[in-house]
């Protein structure tokens, strides 16, 4: 099955500056967080994926080659920009109808879908008012509606919760979570707000200085030192004794209380090693969990520790 986005040695240079450096990944999922500090190459990647700028290597979106089929891709992708991108003097319904027509929908269909998209985005009563008088939250909703109106299969959302108050942010996140469920749209969410990613994304792509640092599930990101390699173990008693026993197998242990310890397993070992060692030592295990960082901590760790992209990229 074709992944939503496939990159193969995707490289983009602006003169001597390498904006994207041999990105290789197959990205799939329902809500994918696109993360990275300023200058990481996220905007350049989006431009490449939309077929707007030339590049080396290969980038495919929905199975289409972005260097050749840019217009077809843009018909099937919705883009919600971070900055304001409205036409002066238009009402929300006029803007969305125009957006639909520009994406190839017949006028009547575009108008019907404009009303539906605005209704969906929560602008039902205000949709005939000029956008110039809208609040930030309402403008964000119009941006979402205009990205949705032509019925895209993927939505690129660029900082959709920027500048929103907590209630409006909550509403926007609800819509983002609802979209894949109700409309079958996959979402690529480019954001700085890691709590948003933690809340809604099931996968993440992390970029830094034009290179891909991580591509995989959020769970993998949070335990990105290696799935299941770092464990939090709770015992009935004698945590010290279990730590000593495990150390003899090559594991690194930190005893955090008489009944708890953290274990870094050797590269090839699994959690079975802990159970086996405890059974041999006659210690009862009460709890065993994979130790996970918050997305924020994981993000910082990924940025700080370059990883092998080949092992990090996961469909």
């Amino acid at each position, binding site marked *: 099955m074709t992944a939503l986005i496939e990159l193969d040695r995707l490289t983009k240079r602006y003169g001597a500056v390498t904006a994207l450096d041999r990105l290789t990944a197959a990205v799939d999922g329902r809500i994918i967080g696109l993360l990275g500090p300023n200058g990481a190459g996220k905007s350049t990647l989006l431009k490449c994926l939309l077929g707007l700028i030339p590049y080396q290597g290969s980038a495919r979106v929905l199975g289409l080659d972005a260097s050749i089929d840019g*217009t077809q891709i843009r018909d099937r992708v919705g*883009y919600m920009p971070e900055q304001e*991108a409205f*036409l*002066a003097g238009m009402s929300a319904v006029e803007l969305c109808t125009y957006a639909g027509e*520009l994406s190839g929908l017949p006028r009547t269909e575009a108008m019907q879908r404009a009303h539906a998209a605005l*209704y969906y985005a929560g602008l039902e009563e205000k949709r005939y008012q000029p956008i110039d008088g809208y609040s930030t939250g309402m403008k964000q909703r119009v941006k979402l509606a205009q990205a949705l109106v*032509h019925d895209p299969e993927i939505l690129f959302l660029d900082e959709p919760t920027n500048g929103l108050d907590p209630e409006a942010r909550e509403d926007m996140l*609800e819509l983002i979570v*609802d979209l894949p469920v109700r409309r079958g749209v996959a979402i690529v969410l480019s954001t700085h707000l890691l709590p948003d990613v933690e809340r809604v994304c099931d996968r993440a792509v992390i970029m830094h200085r034009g290179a891909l640092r991580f591509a995989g599930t959020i769970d993998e990101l949070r335990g990105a030192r290696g799935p299941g390699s770092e464990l939090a173990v709770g015992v009935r008693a004698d945590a010290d004794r279990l730590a000593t026993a495990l150390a003899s197998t090559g594991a690194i242990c930190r005893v955090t209380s008489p009944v708890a310890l953290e274990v870094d397993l050797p590269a090839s070992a699994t959690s079975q090693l802990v159970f086996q060692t405890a059974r041999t030592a006659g210690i009862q295990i009460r709890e065993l969990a994979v130790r996970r960082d918050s997305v924020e901590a994981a993000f910082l760790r990924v940025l700080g520790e370059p990883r092998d992209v080949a092992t990090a990229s996961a469909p």
Partner: protein
Amino acid sequence: MTGQIHDLGYQRYAGARRSTTSRWTVILRHQIATAWQTWWRFKAWLVVAVLATGTGVALIYLASDTRLRMITNLRGAEVQLADGILPTFLGVFGVYDKIGFIAALFVATPAIARDVQSGAFTFYFARSVRPRDYVLGKLAGIGAVMALLLLAGPLVIALARLGLSDDWDDLIARLPTVAKALAVGVLGTVVYTAMPLACSALARSRGHAMVLWAGYYVVFSNLVVVAAMRTSAKWAVLDLPTALQSITLSMFDLQLRVRRSLDVPAGAAVISIAAHAAVAIGLMFWQVRNAQRAGVGGAA
């Protein structure tokens, strides 16, 4: 809205999409609608054009009066007064030129600059709109609006002259007037569409675009005319109003004593207008393509 999302029975769109090559027509329609939206942007100048055209038609009607014609015939005039109205409007007073300049200031110069200012390039180019569709849509939309002012007026006056012909022979003899009015109208439309749109593409805001166009039309034109008067008349071909006037006078076989020193061959004037239009369209395309590549993405 929290907790409540309305979807109005969403269904995936399964119908055909309009071909990419016809997306410019959507921009064309939008451009016309935008021009029509506000009173001062287009309708005011349309009223002025209608008044000018109405005046021209009324003058032709009066000049066709038998008693007036008897007087002019007695004075030995070779040309009927009614035949001179259209060339006078177009070539001597430049009535439609002036309307074209002012209308372009309000209709054409904001067309692209306003999109740059409001971030609308992202709106357009994140969709399957290509720079050439955008440029073509803007040119055709503004062209249609300007044609209503600069082409329809002269055409109506020419048709009125035909309608007031004495007989069929007279009518057939005056048919070329319609073609001449059409030609002048088309050239005027090209000039007053392409040049202000190029100014619009080069500016960063609507105000700058208006200043650029007004500066080009008033300051540059006058500098060229002064330079031509002091050096060689051929330089006057660079001034678009002069080029248009030369073509008009040449078509209607007229000469103006006051500006004889600025007469340029009609062929050279046509080439000048075509070259100006080509450069203007090239500039627009270049600017728009650069904006397309830079416009999508943002500060994420």
